[in-house]
């Protein structure tokens, strides 16, 4: 029932459903870790987990932007792998070449993003097909540059991306900065608010005069830039990254977006919840490792989490409850 008030209640700051869900899940997991597998919370384990959680968080944020526009980005593996290969192969140990290499990686990322954006936003191609094609081209670039063999990263990158400051992995700081930037851009700027509105209902957004295609294109460009950052970080964290390192991030990236509460149909994004979901999935790995359950269980948990995450938003739970608690409303029969 609507409340009859003159003067609407002003908004209050509240945590989203997704953030609460995934936050509670993380707390439960941490408690379970502490009780059942204390070794998964040892300093070494946590320091080992956090860099990968950071990378997943950054990739997840990129995927979130695309999902907000009702799309999906399958070019994550190619994008992450390409960034890794460029920043490790081109300097080939020479610290002086690191910065140009990183700039080059961003250039490639922007180009890939524009390609995706053009194909989806402008030509109206299906996001799956467009990003699938782009992914293949990105991997072609990966193989063209690396020849398929892994390279050792430069010392400089290793110390910057893989090092510790104040006892915390540097990648965490990078991920934190990226998260804050994404949150401010999406939630606090004119462009960001329009971006969310377009994702929620492009038809209505068009009717109010918003530039729908520009924002849809921008989503893919921003996403690629974030994948690039993730790739650079990963190149520093892993001593000898392979040319196909990005492959392992596609599915988890989609999973953290959905777990964070962002609908695959587009609309509002939940960056903070996405980041928390990334930590959750990464800690789940540590936990499984410590408890000794096989890799398979982790995957099954991901699938279950995804199913629950989607079902929370798609199924009309009040109706389901109604079906179980009360008998169905009887149809008034046609009187004779």
């Amino acid at each position, binding site marked *: 029932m*609507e409340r009859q008030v003159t003067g*609407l209640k002003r908004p209050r700051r509240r945590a989203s459903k997704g953030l609460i869900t995934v936050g509670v899940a993380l707390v439960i997991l941490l408690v379970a870790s502490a009780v059942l597998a204390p070794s998964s919370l040892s300093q070494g384990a946590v320091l080992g987990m956090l860099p990968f959680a950071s990378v997943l968080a950054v990739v997840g944020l990129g995927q979130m932007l695309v999902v907000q526009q009702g799309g999906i980005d399958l070019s994550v593996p190619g994008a992450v792998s390409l960034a890794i290969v460029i920043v490790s192969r081109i300097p080939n140990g020479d610290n002086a070449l690191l910065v140009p290499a990183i700039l080059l990686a961003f250039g490639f990322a922007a180009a890939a993003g524009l390609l995706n954006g053009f194909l989806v936003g402008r030509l109206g191609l299906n996001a799956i097909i467009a990003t699938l094609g782009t992914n*293949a081209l990105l991997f*072609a670039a990966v193989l063209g540059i690396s020849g398929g063999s892994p390279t050792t990263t430069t010392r400089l990158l290793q110390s910057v991306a893989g090092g510790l400051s104040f006892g915390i992995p540097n990648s965490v700081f990078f991920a934190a900065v990226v998260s804050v930037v994404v949150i401010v851009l999406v939630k606090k700027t004119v462009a960001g608010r329009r971006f969310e509105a377009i994702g929620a209902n492009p038809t209505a957004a068009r009717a109010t005069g918003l530039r729908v295609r520009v924002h849809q294109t921008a989503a893919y460009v921003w996403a690629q830039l974030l994948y690039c950052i993730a790739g650079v970080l990963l190149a520093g964290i892993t001593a000898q990254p392979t040319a196909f390192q990005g492959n392992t991030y596609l599915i988890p990236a*989609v999973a953290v977006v959905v777990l964070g509460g962002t609908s695959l149909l587009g*609309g509002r994004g939940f960056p903070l919840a996405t980041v928390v979901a990334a930590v959750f999935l990464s800690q789940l790995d540590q936990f499984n490792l410590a408890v000794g359950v096989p890799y398979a269980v982790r995957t099954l948990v*991901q699938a279950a989490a995804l199913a629950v995450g989607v*079902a929370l938003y798609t199924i009309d739970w009040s109706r389901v409850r109604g079906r179980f608690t009360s008998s169905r409303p009887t149809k008034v*029969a046609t009187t*004779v």
Partner: protein
Amino acid sequence: MILLNNQTYVPADDLVAVSVPTLSLSDITKTYAGVVALENVSFDVLPGEVHALLGENGAGKSTLMNVASGTVQPDSGTIRVGGETIDVLSPALAAASGIAIVHQHPAVLPDMTVLENLQVALPASAFSSTAASSASSAPDAAGSVEQIAGRMLAEMGLTAHLRDRVETLTVAQKHLLEIAKALALKPRILVLDEPTAPLGQDSVDLLFARVRAAVADGTSVIYITHRMAEVRQLATRVTVLRDGRFRGTAAVAEITDDELLALIVGRKLESTFPPKHEADGTEPVNFVLKGFTGPGFEDVNASTTRGQILGVAGVVGNGQSELLRALAGLESFTGTATVADRAVTPTELLHRAGYMPADRHREGLMMTLTVQENAAISALTKFKKFLVLSSPREVTEVGSTLDSLNVKAPAMDAVVSSLSGGNQQKVVMARALLSEPLIVVADEPTQGVDVGARLEIYKILRQVSASGIPVIIASSDAKELEGLCDQVIVMSRGHAVDLIVGDEITEERIVRAAVSSTTHTIEVPTVRKQRPLAGTKVRSEGFARFVQGDYAPTVLLVGIIVLLGAFIFSQNARYLSAFNIYSVLTLVAALGFIALGQTIALIIGGIDLSVGPLAGFLVVVGSFFFNDDKPLSIVALGLVLMFVVAIATGFVNGALIRFGKFTAIAATLTLYIALQGLSFLLRDSPDGYIGSGVTAVMTTKVGPVPIAFIVLVVVAVLLEFALRRTRWGRRLRATGSSEESARRIGVNINKTVILAYMLTSIFAFVGAIMLMVQIGVGDPAQGVSYTLTSITAVVLGGTSLLGGRGTFIGTLFGSILLIQVLNATTFLGLSQMWQYIFQGVLILAAAVLYSVARSRKKKLEALA
């Protein structure tokens, strides 16, 4: 004889012949959430008569006909068909009783041909020669399906070719097709809901002739219309509804236009109105339309002064919405629109007009966002402080606007979908006002709005108008325009047929202008010429139809495959060695089967991401059974188990999509991850070698060609045939083409979709058997990549990701090309990089080429 009493229905004895009414509805009452749609309405139709049903929008005509066709169950009342009382009339029972209804919006399937549309909607018996010969007057009525279908079209004067895609038809032609479908059923009762709205004069004459012929055969026709002229031309009796109540039945010959009009108008006032603008003669003109023409309306002229509200009246669908959309900058226009002495462009209007669309859910609001976000979206730049938004300023300003409109909601950050219709509309208004608009354009501003909120909305519109912003309102409720507007344009079939000013604006005058108009349609929304007659267009037609058809990509693929093959052969003669042919075709077989399955998922408008991991998982399962040391019974058991797993996977996919309301991506991605997990659960590393006996069976070949490939080709051809020629295939494509239309013509969507996903999984199972032999061991990491390659193969083959059109043959060749390209790199001595380049370029080129070809065709049509 006129019956003016609202409550009692007295049959007009002198009209009702002794015959039993074909359909009789008595004392029908239907309420929706407390709102009365029909109250004790009685209506009957006799054999061989045309009974017109008149009334304004919202009078209850459509609801009554939905009751008659079984799609709406009344709260109370009696339904008799042919004198027999029916307790619950279902759509199926209505159809079986010979009730056919032609809706205002044709239930046609754009991706299918005219012939297929007829075939999917009509029972097979409609095409049997006996049915045709008994019904048609022509002596040579017997003939092939094409001939019979051709006659159905010819009888309606529909000039389209049977093999034309319905997508390429004009709105009028789609309507004729819909009517042809209904007539082909030889119904006892035919309900026509405003059939002439999109038709030109020729088609109207033909339609009337057909209706008369059907009536002569004893069919009862219920004819819903807004136009009195048509009632006079066609109907024997007329019944008028108003506000869901019966107003009277009369013989058309015995009632005058004025008497009919008196029955139609006079709705009870649902709301009071704020006082109108008192002109003192000094106000400047602030809004002028001159020769304003756009898609769906023509040469509209108007001029209002400051403080005047301009109304746009007419029966729904006569160009009012299009006119308002043009004023909101959403359609292009010619002529001029002047706001405050300055001509405005569509782009300017798009950004500066405060548009309140009729369909709030689709076009008005971002339903998942909050009240505040919705209201603020057009005015965000106002709240900018440096680079970021100032939250306090936004909250204060948006809040005060929402308060001034008296929006009732739990809070500003409540989700807008939780508000009542009236409050949602106020949020739309708040957005328009916050954006400081040039003009305010409101389409049906009080539709779905409760009475209390209506007055408030009227008052706000008055205030806006008084402040000097021109206000234009379209409404199908003449009473509302009478109460609110200072000038009213009446639209009929896209033309402004009347301009009413000041005190002359009365409901009666508006309705009279709308219903007595005899203008003819300018074919909304595409003002394009009728296609030339069949004889004159034969030269290019066949080729054009082929290019637009499903097989053009296939021919292109065959060309590329041959050229590429010839090129590689010229570089390396070993390319066509028996060994290479064998190994390439073996690879094609595995991919091909999985891709055939994927094609099914895409044709219904979905996608199946789980095929790859499913194939991989099935291999892992198989690796426990298909070993050298296992007896045949165990092998058979494994086969059955694999099959069951596949079917179960497909069922879960389909059920999640249909019952869990998952998107196809979400559902199949869940299964993708789960199946991968299960693979690793059964085997954490490759193990379980596939027995040589099984391998030998599966690798049998004829010459250099593996048997498996031959089976694949045969299956693809059979599937293609089924897709084109069987009920299953047509239903599959109907579902993908337009789920809503498919449902209306009686396709069981849930069953079709779930079966489709199960079939997709079954093909993944067949592919898995091929894969098992190729991999030779239960490797949990294998198979996954087949998801993306199968999608690539299907897209190369020309199947649309939008659903509704596709081809299995194309998929077959798509698979061949894909494998050929990967194989080519080895023979050309190219690095692995080229595999990826070829793959990426192929899929993007195919997607761009096919989709651009399609959209350009549409664009050309819009221009023509």
